[in-house]
């Protein structure tokens, strides 16, 4: 079994991390962690990472409407010039991206062109592992933000996800970020605080997995206390029981993106210690009937992200936030015939925020010089990560990215 599917990765990361977590369980005690909460540097920036699961079609997101090759390759899927929201005389945004278009004109949206990695893998799971671990040759067992967290002291409150299962990108060698539910009433516990505190203790005979189970009790108390102050009662209602969005087969968080970002906004405004938030939206695996489905999904992204960026602009802490939007790959240039697209390679990465210098960065990939029908990447995704580590998280990127030296020039 040398296959490293996402499932396997999740376990593997837990196992590697668990050895350290077993030793580190006491490091997550409430009192120790709380003492550091006020130490946040007011100038410290916050990273909000938005993962689009399923492989978002980049060519119909940032659209090369003036390129005849674009129209030739996907006549039914292509957007005509008068439908796109123009960025210049060559490219425009998907019609569903009205809010992002406005942010672009305001200089707060940067588009990094043609982002990918060598020898692209067209498996959702392997490619996402690659983006999460930042190790294209052989995805390892730690996420790039998990490794950052290791270096930043391992406090789980520094890196928070609003998904029930921890995304691999937040799993470190010695520590792991926290997963915080968007919904769910924290008051219905049934068990006394002393019992929860009791379970948080380490036991000598614990296996690493059991130690992790015990550490959750300590993490829960720490994270709870942090989030309690920012969660309104209305966000803490019943579990969702309604009909979810139309599904495709490749994952993403179960809660709406705007609800996740709303919680991020409250945390940022409350100046919590968290430096990295991870949120996600699934459903981008558009093998059929892509146009309408992608517009619905991009509409959700547009409303949630532009609303969030606007809100962040209103506070000092919010102006330190940098939002990043990416997906595990783009789609084939040519449509597949069921009005959809199959798995492809490079795509654009979006950066947003008050501190972002808007515009376009890097080379747009050619639509005619293709690699087996797919775009050749022009920007290595590690350049993006290195820039975020250096400019947003104040960390030496080389230590996290295996000595990687590339950077983006300009957007941050």
């Amino acid at each position, binding site marked *: 079994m040398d*296959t490293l599917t996402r499932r396997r990765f999740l376990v*593997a990361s*837990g196992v590697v991390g668990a050895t350290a977590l077993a030793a580190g369980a006491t490091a997550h005690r409430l009192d120790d962690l709380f003492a550091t909460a006020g130490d946040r540097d007011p100038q410290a920036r916050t990273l909000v990472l938005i993962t689009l699961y399923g492989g978002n079609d980049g060519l119909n997101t940032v659209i090369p409407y003036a390129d005849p090759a674009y129209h030739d390759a996907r006549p039914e899927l292509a957007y005509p010039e008068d439908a796109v929201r123009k960025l210049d005389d060559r490219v425009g945004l998907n019609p569903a991206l009205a809010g992002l278009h406005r942010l672009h004109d305001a200089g707060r949206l940067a588009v990094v062109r043609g982002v990918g990695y060598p020898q692209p893998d067209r498996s959702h799971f392997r490619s996402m592992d690659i983006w999460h671990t930042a190790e294209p040759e052989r995805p390892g067992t730690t996420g790039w933000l998990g490794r950052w967290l290791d270096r930043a002291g391992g406090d789980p409150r520094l890196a928070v996800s609003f998904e029930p299962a921890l995304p691999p990108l937040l799993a470190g060698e010695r520590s792991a970020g926290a*997963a915080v*539910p968007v919904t769910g009433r924290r008051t219905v516990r049934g068990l006394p605080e002393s019992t929860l505190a009791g379970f948080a203790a380490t036991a000598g005979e*614990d296996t690493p997995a059991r130690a992790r189970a015990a550490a959750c009790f300590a993490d829960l108390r720490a994270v709870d206390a942090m989030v309690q102050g920012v969660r309104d009662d209305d966000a803490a209602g019943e579990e969702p029981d309604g009909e979810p969005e139309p599904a495709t*087969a490749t994952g993403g968080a*179960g809660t709406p993106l705007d609800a996740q970002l709303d919680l991020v906004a409250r945390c940022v405004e409350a100046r919590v210690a968290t430096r990295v938030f991870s949120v996600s939206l699934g459903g981008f695996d558009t*093998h*059929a009937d892509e146009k309408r489905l992608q517009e619905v999904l991009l509409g959700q992204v547009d409303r949630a992200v532009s609303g969030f960026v606007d809100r962040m602009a209103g506070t000092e802490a919010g102006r330190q936030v940098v939002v990043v939007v990416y997906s595990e790959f783009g789609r084939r240039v040519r449509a597949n015939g069921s009005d959809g697209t199959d798995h492809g390679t490079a795509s654009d990465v979006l950066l947003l925020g008050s501190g972002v210098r808007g515009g376009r960065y890097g080379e747009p990939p050619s639509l005619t010089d293709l690699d087996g029908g797919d775009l050749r990447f022009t920007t290595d995704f590690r350049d993006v990560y290195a820039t975020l580590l250096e400019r947003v998280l104040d960390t030496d990127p080389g230590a996290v990215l295996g000595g990687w030296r590339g950077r983006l020039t300009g957007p941050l």
Partner: protein
Amino acid sequence: MTEREAVAHLLRRATFGPTADEVDDAERVGVRATLDRLLAPTGPDRTPGLPDLGPDPYAGLTRSSTREQRQQANQRRRAQVRALTWWWLDRMVTSTDQAGEKLLFFWHGHWATSERKVRSATLMLRHLETLRRYGRGPLPPLVDAMVRDPALILWLDGQRNTRKAPNENLARELMELFTLGHGNGYTEDDVREGARALTGWTVDRRTGAVRFEPRRHDAGPKTILGQRADFDAASYAGLLAGRPETARHVAGRLWFRYAGPDVPPPADLAGPDTVTTLRRILTAPAFAQTRDTLVKQPVEWLVGAARQLGVRPSGLPEQERRRLLAGLAALDQVPLRPPSVGGWPAGTAWLTTASLQARLRTADALAGAAARTVLATLTAAPPAGRPDALARLLVVDRWSERTRAALTPLTGEPRKLIAAGLVSPEYAVY
């Protein structure tokens, strides 16, 4: 490991969670006979037959149906899916063929297909019954049945895959996830050629039947995994299922699920059929070393607790049932709704602060629903002996000092004691 610990380990892994009585029985007959009973159950399964879901609500819809009619059909479909989910959970709890039911749940996570896109309880039930029918035997008939399973075809856009308009979705996941495994010798060209082989199969949404339409099929020669032939769905499935990589990949997945990721699988695990592979896993010396390393999946956790606490889901009031299902939703594992074609995550991914909160709430609901006889057994012990009585009830070999200390103050409140046991590290990891 004592004999009792050995049978308890076997039963915990091979079933959804044994009751104390089942462990007693197994201890009497020994590990060997217990395994035989599990893998070759005698006598019919004493569980209710298939649920009667009624006609597919979409069958009556036409192009001219009104918005209201569509909404009503949607509502009926959701009710059918809920009914099917409950029926299955109930079956997991009550089935006397526990190993078979657990194996079915493994296959459900392997050929991970979701009603969220299939949108038909009838087709999801048929999908499960196909997995049940072929899931114990050799792989070729299983793979052959699955490439023509309507739910799987809809889930991965197979019905959109035609000669003129190839769609790679099913062909790719078939090789990457269901048979060969990622990176095991296939190329992007094999994906494209495989998609051509699968062309022509459609699903009639009105009747739910799969149909082969020859004019949509690409009958030309294809080169797949180095072999050139006029592959169609059957011969493509046969090619994949017969490859040694497939047997190894599936055996590895089974090892991963039943033994866990900590100990590498022994060589030559793959048997001629799945039950043989399972037997090799459960009798491997390495299997015994995997105690206390696997994190329970939410469904395993909930179904096992229901079995041990005498909770029968179908007997619960609607509100209690909804609480349990909401618990599974918050834990991110609702049957018939895997999050992606890759199936559910595993291991410490389930051990997060978010899932702990959901476990706390759901444990409260489960303890509240515990049968009176179960409570009576627990409270028959003097308070000081109740942590041990609880360990027996929940089939935990022993509590750590940490957990015993946390449980002791609750011995006067049996339901709280049970809830605490259900969220303890010793119960979450087995």
